[in-house]
């Protein structure tokens, strides 16, 4: 890489990172406002209510009796110092500790799914495109359409029924997958499959379409005409160009995966960050909501940055400015 380009790249990265600061501020502002405008307070509940003096005590403890702008400034100030406050819902536990508790589960699941999605999605897509209008193509397209239309909770529950409950019955308990929970073992199989189905079909369709387009290009025809080996034509001339839109899609996909799927976490009883977030919203746990939003925003921003940097590697025509 020429020196000038490396310097440009460094500047580019620094600038992008700096841009995240206003983005995060905006995320805090919007999340903070929306949740305070949402009806219902953290202390509203079904059944026995908290006595009025207890509600007053709690508001005083968490500063909720102060004016909103003051609460906002106080929050931003402590967030800058990486203090995201105490959860309202979980007594005596900090937001950061709760996020760090749930995060590893979600991240493990997301990374495993991603490692399955990339080869499967691209592989199926390329195979279908190279054998367009053959049985392979029809099977891939059929699977993609089916996978895209079946919601993942259905996939998850079907997997549980077959691989856990039925398999347990058929093998008289000799072999079956645990229906829920987490561990770095067979616990991962069903959730990873469930989480991957939709992105695999999406990536496969995307790869197939863009590969088909590239295959029709003149330079590919030229490559064939030159009598190059198939592998060389496909990898060097076709894939390199057809994967650009796929890489664009993989960034958000990765961000989506590691920020947690609420449904998959719920179905497979995985104590991840996705379910933590939903619980936080429904229980109006303000510090948890903002804390998790910040993390999500950060991940999406970083994933997009990585995608933009990858363009440079794949496509020399791309210039970062």
């Amino acid at each position, binding site marked *: 890489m020429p020196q000038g380009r490396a310097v440009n790249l460094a500047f580019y990265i620094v600038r992008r990172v700096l841009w995240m600061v206003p983005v995060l501020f905006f995320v805090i502002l919007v999340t903070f406002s929306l949740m305070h405008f*949402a*009806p*219902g*307070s*953290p202390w*509203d*509940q*079904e*059944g*026995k*209510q*908290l*006595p*009025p*003096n*207890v509600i*007053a*005590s*709690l508001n*005083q*403890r968490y500063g909720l009796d102060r004016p909103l702008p003051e609460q906002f400034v106080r929050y931003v100030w402590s967030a800058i110092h990486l203090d995201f406050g*105490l959860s309202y*819902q*979980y*007594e*005596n*536990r*900090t937001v950061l500790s*709760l996020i760090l*508790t*749930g995060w590893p589960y979600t991240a493990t699941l997301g990374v495993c799914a991603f490692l399955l999605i990339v080869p499967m999605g691209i592989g199926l897509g390329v195979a279908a495109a190279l054998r367009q209008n053959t049985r392979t193509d029809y099977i891939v397209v059929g699977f993609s359409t089916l996978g895209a239309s079946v919601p993942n909770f259905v996939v998850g*529950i079907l997997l*549980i029924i077959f691989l*856990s*409950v039925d398999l*347990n019955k058929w093998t008289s308990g000799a072999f*079956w997958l*645990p*229906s*829920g*929970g*987490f561990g770095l073992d067979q616990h991962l199989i069903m959730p990873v499959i469930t989480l991957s189905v939709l992105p695999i079909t999406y990536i496969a369709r995307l790869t197939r379409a863009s590969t088909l387009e590239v295959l029709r290009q003149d330079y590919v025809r030229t490559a064939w005409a030159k009598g190059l080996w198939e592998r060389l034509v496909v990898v060097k001339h076709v894939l390199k160009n057809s994967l650009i839109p796929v890489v664009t899609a993989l960034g958000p996909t990765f961000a989506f995966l590691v920020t947690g799927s609420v449904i998959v976490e*719920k*179905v*497979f*009883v995985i*104590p991840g960050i996705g*379910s*933590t977030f*939903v*619980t936080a919203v*429904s*229980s*109006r746990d303000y510090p948890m909501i903002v804390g998790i939003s910040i993390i999500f925003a950060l991940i999406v921003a970083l994933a997009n940055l990585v995608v933009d940097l990858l363009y440079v590697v794949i496509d020399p025509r791309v210039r970062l400015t």
Partner: protein
Amino acid sequence: MQLGKPLQPIRLVAVLGAALIGVLACGPGGGGTTTNLAKDQVLRYNIGVEPNSFDPGQQQYTYEAAVGRQAFEALLKPNKDLTDVEPATAEKYEVSSDGLTYTFHIRKNAKWSDGQPVKAQDFVYGWQRLIDPRLGAPYNDYYVFKGVEAASKLKATDPADKIDAALQALGLKATDDSTFVVTLSEPAPYFKWIATLWNGAPIRKDVVQKGGSLTDPKNTWATKPETLIGNGPFKVTEIASKDHVTLEASSNYWGGAPTLKKMVFYEISDANADFAKYKNGEVDMNNVPLANTDLVRNDPQLSKELRETPQLGVRWIQFNNTKPPFDNQDVRMAFAKAVDRDKLAKDVFKGRALPISTFIPKGQSGNNPTVGGDPQKFDAAAAKDLLKKAGVTSLNVTYLVRNDTANQQIAQFIQDQIQTNLPGVKITLEVIDSKTVTSRLRQKNFQMYHGGWIGDYPDPQNWFDLFKTGSGNQFSGYSNKQYDDLVKRADVEKDPAKRKDLYDQAHAIIVKEVAGAFMYQGKNFYLVKPYVQNDTITPIDEWPGCYFSKNITIGQH
């Protein structure tokens, strides 16, 4: 008691299990026999949600009591048919003749899980914490004794010495290490039940101090098993956040270490996943989801493991009595009489509810299905007449419902019944999230709501308190001075017969004036594996057998 959390109300309402006949009708496995014990004495159950706190004083939900009641023990506990209290950490108690002083004698051999003796001072401290504004204990309002009134005016931000002085002035005293004396400001015959609440457990000051400053919200004593020292038959040994809590038998428990060595409480929010786990043998007990009722009934194996028990809770239609059209008693009564409760219990609940048109559930003293002539009884013709009498020919109302499947099914049934039986009435369901519903109720921004109550303790006071003027636990805006007076007199009345009569009179008033249109009493469907032995289910269990957990044994299987 708490009806549950927004995400899982069905399951939590159900977890609050009541088992009126469960005690008598212990199904298979519930017998009193102890046959060959299994090698692993482990009991596994799903409580659905991670406890928000492990400090019993800070707990309020059933899934919290599920753990708190095992790790800590209050002064007294209910007997198995809820007719009276029986000794727990206090071996006996006396009430002064004026009904104002309760003297509890702590067992000499009562010990904390680390072997130290449980002292009366630990109860004084535990109960002071319930009143301390800096801690905001949820059950604060149930602990009625001298000085509480003044302390409730304190702010969390008041100077520490001012708060401490108020706490010292409370009617709580340890006259010696084993005598805990509580002074009330007025007689309360139901106070013995307050002494059974799990959140009134003793707390050790030196243990709390290990987690940081005593009143700091960041104090961590109750978040780690090492510092979570309790006086219950079990002790918390593992807190795997959002996954499970493990408790192990405490060898220091005054009654001796339970035979059951270990309890694992899972935190699986999905009721169907939990049900699958039961079928796989990954948990030993299950609270059957409503949708699986018929499946369980028709399954030859599961139906044998079923423990069907009424719940000490009632649901009703709550009207906004402060605004038209429901400020008119005839309109409320027309609605109340327009719903066929028998059909509701049969069609929607598939027999998992008992129809009721009065306030107090079966199994709770004060239950009186014919009180005041049962005016709310289903009668479509009379309902029509009442509406005509009120001069209403057409009416559009919205019905506020919390967004869970069971609530919606029930509300749809009620909607259909009223629209069919009261021509001209149109009901629109407004299904929204739980917190929003409560805030709308508080603002009186509603017309009809699907409300209810589950008893915290089996004394009618816990129920009749609900419709007193200004009650914070229901939002109808109902107010009747005569009712308030009757309940107030009954609350302090020492003669049980007189007390019952006063409550009956009050009962007749709220039924007649339709403080709520009472609909049904829930039932629990527990599945218990046949090898779970010696479990005693009571009407107010948070999980089947929780009050008598130390007797449970696991048979070979």
